C-alpha cells in the first residue's frame, strides 16, 4: 500500500526481504494441521495484509480462538512477542477498580509448571526483557529477546495464559507493590493526581472515570478470589492476540504456538457488557487541586472522539499545530514569546470509546493562570476560525511521519503498533491507514474538528495551585 511519496518501508531496500520468507499460506497451514485432530489446535489462515510497501502482516487463528499476527523482519537478530488481552480498567466496576492492573502484576507469579520467580529468571537468562502494561481498554504483555529465545517465550506465555496459580502470599505482596506504585505515580505526583481528578470529573458514567491503577482502598481490598474470578473471565485465547515481529522462522514459530496454545480451551469469557454511554457535557467543569508544588499548572480535558472516529485524524493534526514541538503555535506563544509557561503539551487519549483531548500548561512562577487560559482560548478560537496554513499542515504531517517511522525502528516497536491497532482499531495493519488519513486532512477538516470538539462547554479544567509553605 501507499504511494511513492509515502517514503515508507521501501520494497527495494535490501533489508526488507520479508516476502521471501513467508511461504504460500495454504501450503503452510496444510503442513501444520497435518495429523492434528484437536479442533482447538488447528490453524486457519485468515489473510495477508501489506505492512508498508515491503513487509507483510500474516493473520491466522487457532481453533480455540487465539488470533496470531506475524511480521517477519530480519533487520536485526531480535524478536518481539506481544500478547494483547482485550481487558482493561473499562471492564472493572466501582469497588473493584485497579483489578486489571493488579492482575497484570500477578501474571509474573507462579504457574502449575513454573515456581514463583522462574518466569523472570528464565526470561532474563535468555537475555529477554519482559514487561507489561495495562490501560483502559487493554492489557499487554511483551518480551523483546534475541531471536533464538522465541520457543521459550511461546512456552512461557502459553503457560501463564491458563496455568497461573494464585495464592495469598503473592497476592498480598503484589498488592503492596501496587500500593507503592500508586503512591509513586499518583499520591505523591502532582500530575498523576490532577489527571485522576480530571477523568473522575470529565466522565460521570463511563468506566474511563476511574484510574487504571485503582483507588488505594480497592487495591487494599482485593482477595485471591477476586483475582481468580478475573482470570477465569478474561484470560482465554479468544480474548487475546499474539503478535510476533522480528527475525524468526514462520513455520517453526507457528508450530510452537500450536504445540503450546493448542491444548488451551476455547474462550471461557462471556462478552463484556458495553460500557454506559457518557451523557454529553453541557457546561465547563472547573476543579482546584492545592499541592506542595513550586509552580502552578493547568490541565484541561476536552471531550474527544474515539481513536477510530473519522474526526480523530483532523484533531491529531490540530494537536500537532498547537503543541507539536518547538515550532508549534502554543509552544511559541507560551514558552518563547510571552514566557508564561516552561512547557506545554497536548495529547488525545487513544481509547476505544470517546475520551479526552488533554492539554497541559506548566506555568512559570508568578504567571497568572487566567492570562494563560485567555491565551489558550484565543489560539483555539483562531484555529477554529481560520484553520491551519498549508505550511502548518505539511509540517504536521512530516512530523507525524517522522514519529511513525521512529516507532517502527525495532521489532518491539512494530509489534507494539500492530498489537495496539489490532486491539483498539480491530486491524493490526491500520497504522498505515492512519498515516494516509493524516495526509488527507484538509484545513477545513481541522477547522471543523476544532469547532466541534474544542468547545469550552465541553471541557473540564483542573487548576493546580501552590500550597503555601
Amino acid at each position, binding site marked *: 500500500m501507499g504511494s511513492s511519496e509515502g*517514503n515508507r518501508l521501501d520494497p527495494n531496500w535490501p533489508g526488507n526481504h520479508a516476502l521471501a520468507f513467508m511461504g504460500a499460506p495454504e501450503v503452510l497451514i496444510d503442513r501444520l494441521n497435518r495429523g492434528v485432530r484437536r479442533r482447538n489446535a488447528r490453524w486457519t489462515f485468515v489473510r495477508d495484509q501489506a505492512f508498508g510497501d515491503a513487509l507483510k502482516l500474516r493473520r491466522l487463528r487457532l481453533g480455540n480462538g487465539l488470533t496470531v499476527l506475524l511480521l517477519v523482519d530480519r*533487520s*536485526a537478530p*531480535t524478536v518481539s512477542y506481544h500478547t494483547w488481552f482485550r481487558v482493561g480498567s473499562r471492564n472493572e466496576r466501582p469497588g473493584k477498580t485497579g483489578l486489571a492492573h493488579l492482575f497484570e502484576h500477578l501474571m509474573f507469579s507462579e504457574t502449575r509448571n513454573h515456581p514463583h520467580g522462574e518466569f523472570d529468571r528464565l526470561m532474563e537468562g535468555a537475555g529477554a526483557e519482559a514487561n507489561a502494561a495495562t490501560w483502559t481498554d487493554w492489557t499487554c504483555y511483551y518480551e523483546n529477546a534475541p531471536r533464538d529465545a522465541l520457543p521459550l517465550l511461546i512456552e512461557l506465555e502459553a503457560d501463564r495464559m491458563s496455568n497461573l496459580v494464585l495464592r495469598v502470599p503473592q497476592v498480598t505482596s503484589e498488592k503492596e507493590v501496587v500500593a507503592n506504585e500508586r*503512591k509513586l505515580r499518583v499520591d505523591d505526583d502532582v500530575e498523576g493526581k490532577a489527571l485522576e481528578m480530571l477523568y473522575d470529573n470529565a466522565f460521570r458514567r463511563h468506566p474511563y472515570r476511574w484510574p487504571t491503577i485503582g483507588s488505594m482502598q480497592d487495591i487494599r481490598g482485593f482477595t485471591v478470589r477476586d483475582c481468580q474470578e478475573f482470570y477465569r473471565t478474561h484470560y482465554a485465547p479468544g480474548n487475546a492476540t499474539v503478535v510476533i515481529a522480528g527475525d524468526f522462522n514462520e513455520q517453526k514459530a507457528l508450530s510452537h504456538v500450536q504445540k503450546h496454545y493448542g491444548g488451551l480451551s476455547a474462550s471461557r469469557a462471556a462478552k463484556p457488557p458495553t460500557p454506559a454511554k457518557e451523557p454529553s457535557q453541557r457546561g465547563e467543569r472547573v476543579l482546584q487541586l492545592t499541592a506542595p508544588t513550586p509552580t502552578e499548572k493547568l490541565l484541561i480535558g476536552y471531550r474527544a472522539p474515539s481513536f477510530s472516529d473519522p474526526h480523530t485524524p483532523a484533531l491529531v493534526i490540530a494537536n500537532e499545530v498547537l503543541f507539536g514541538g518547538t*515550532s508549534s503555535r502554543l509552544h511559541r506563544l507560551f514558552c518563547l514569546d510571552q514566557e508564561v509557561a516552561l512547557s506545554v503539551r497536548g495529547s488525545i487519549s487513544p481509547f476505544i470509546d470517546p475520551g479526552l483531548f488533554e492539554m497541559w500548561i506548566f506555568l512559570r*512562577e508568578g504567571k497568572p493562570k487566567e492570562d494563560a487560559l485567555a491565551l489558550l482560548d484565543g489560539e483555539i478560537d483562531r484555529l477554529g476560525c481560520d484553520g491551519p496554513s498549508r*505550511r502548518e499542515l505539511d509540517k504536521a504531517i512530516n*512530523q507525524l511521519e517522522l514519529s511513525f517511522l521512529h516507532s517502527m525502528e*525495532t521489532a518491539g516497536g512494530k509489534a507494539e503498533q500492530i498489537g495496539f491497532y489490532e486491539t483498539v482499531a480491530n486491524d493490526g495493519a491500520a497504522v498505515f491507514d492512519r498515516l494516509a488519513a493524516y495526509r488527507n486532512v484538509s484545513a477545513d477538516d481541522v477547522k471543523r474538528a476544532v469547532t466541534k470538539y474544542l468547545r469550552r462547554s465541553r471541557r473540564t479544567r483542573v487548576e493546580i495551585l501552590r500550597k503555601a509553605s
Partner: protein
Amino acid sequence: MSVFFEPSDALPIVDLEIALPVGSLQDPAGQEGLAQLTGHLMRRGPRGLSQERFEDRLASLGARMSVEVSMRSTRVRATVLRRNLEPLLTLLADVVWRPALRGNDFSKLKRRAEAALTARLDDDQALGAVCFRQALFGEHPYGRTLSGHTDSLARISIQHAKEFYARNIARGAFLVGVSGHVSEAEVRSLVASHFPKVRRAGRNVSDVPATRARRGRHVVIVDKPERTQTQLIIGTLGARTRDRNLFPLLVSNTAFGGTFSGPLMQQVRGVRGWSYGAYSRLLHSTQRDAWYMSTAPAAEYSADCAALQLDLLERWVDGGTKQTELRFAQRYLINSHCFDRDTASKRLEARLDVELLDIPRSYVDKYDQLVGRVTRQEANNATRARISDKDLTIVVVATASEVATSFERLPGVKSVEIVPFDRN
C-alpha cells in the same frame, strides 16, 4: 576527518550527530551550567534566521534537533526524513559553524533555565539523584549539576557563552556521526562539503582529580512536605572506565541488583512488596564514578527498607556472589547485548562513545568475551576492592519529621543532615 557511519536501509530516516569532547566538566568554577546554556543557545539557530523561522524550517523538513550536554560531551543530534537529508545537513552545519548566539535569546534561555530549576522540585526522583551526587562527591567536579544553580546561572553572561563557544566548539574539533538510510559515499561527500573545517576531536580525558569517599555512613534527608512515599538512594564510589576491575564488577553488580531476578529486587519487591523498583547501578568515568542502589519505599517502612538494603549489601560484599548467580548474570549480559546494537543509531552511539570518552575499543568489540571470562574469584575480589559497605552516602527524599528518627538508628550511621527540598 572524523566521520563515523552506520548504514541501515530498514527505514527512510537518517540520524546525524555532532559529538564534541566538551561538557559540564569544562564549566569554570562558579559558572556551573555554562556548557549546557551554550549548547542550548546554539540550538536557537544560526545567524540570519530568527529562532521562529529556524524552528519552522526544521519542522517543515520532518526533522528534529536537540543538544544534549553531559559531564564530558556535548551531542548535537538531528533526525530527518531521508528525502530531506541535504537541507537538514545545511541547517545543522549552520548551527555548528554560524550560531547566532543572540543576546535576546540568551536572556530568554537563562530565564527558562531558572524556571526549569524551580520546576524540577516537583520531581522527587530527580531531586534525589542530584542530591545524591552532591552528597557523594562534595566539591569534586563530579558533584556539579549540568544545569547549574540559580547563583551560578546569574553569573553567566552572553559573553561567557560566546567565549565558551569560541574556545571549545568553533575550532571544529569534533566527530561527525551519520546513521540510517544513506550510502557511505554520499555521507563522505555531504560531510566534506558542509563540514570542511572539521579536525579530529581529542578524547575528553579531563584532568579531574581522583574522587574520594567520605568516611562512614552519612544520611541526607531531602525534606519535602506530604510525602507518603520516599525516594531512597544508597551508594558509594564505583569504578574508573579503565579500571581492571570494571568487567568483574559489572558482572557482580548485575548478579546483585541488575536484574529482576537478583537478590536486591527479590528481597525488596518480590518478598516484601516494599518498592515498585529496586536496582543497583554501576557508573564509570575517568575517575571513579558512583555505584548506587535505588528504591522507592513507603514512608512508614523506608528506614526498614534501607536497613534491609544495607544488610544485603554487606552480604554481597563480604560473602560474594555464588557461582550460579554469576553465570546467570553473564548469560543475561551476553544474551541481551543484542539490544545495545539492534538499530544503526545505537551502533553509531557506541562508536562515538569509544572515540570521545576514552573507552577502550575492546569494550565494544569484545564485550561478550570480557563478560564471559570473568571468574567468580575476580568478581568477588572486584566487589570487595571497589564497593565499600562502610563508606556510604544515604539520600532519602521524604518528609523529615516522618523518617528522621528511624534513619538515625540505622547501623553505623555517623551523621544525619536535613536539607529543605527547595534549597538552591
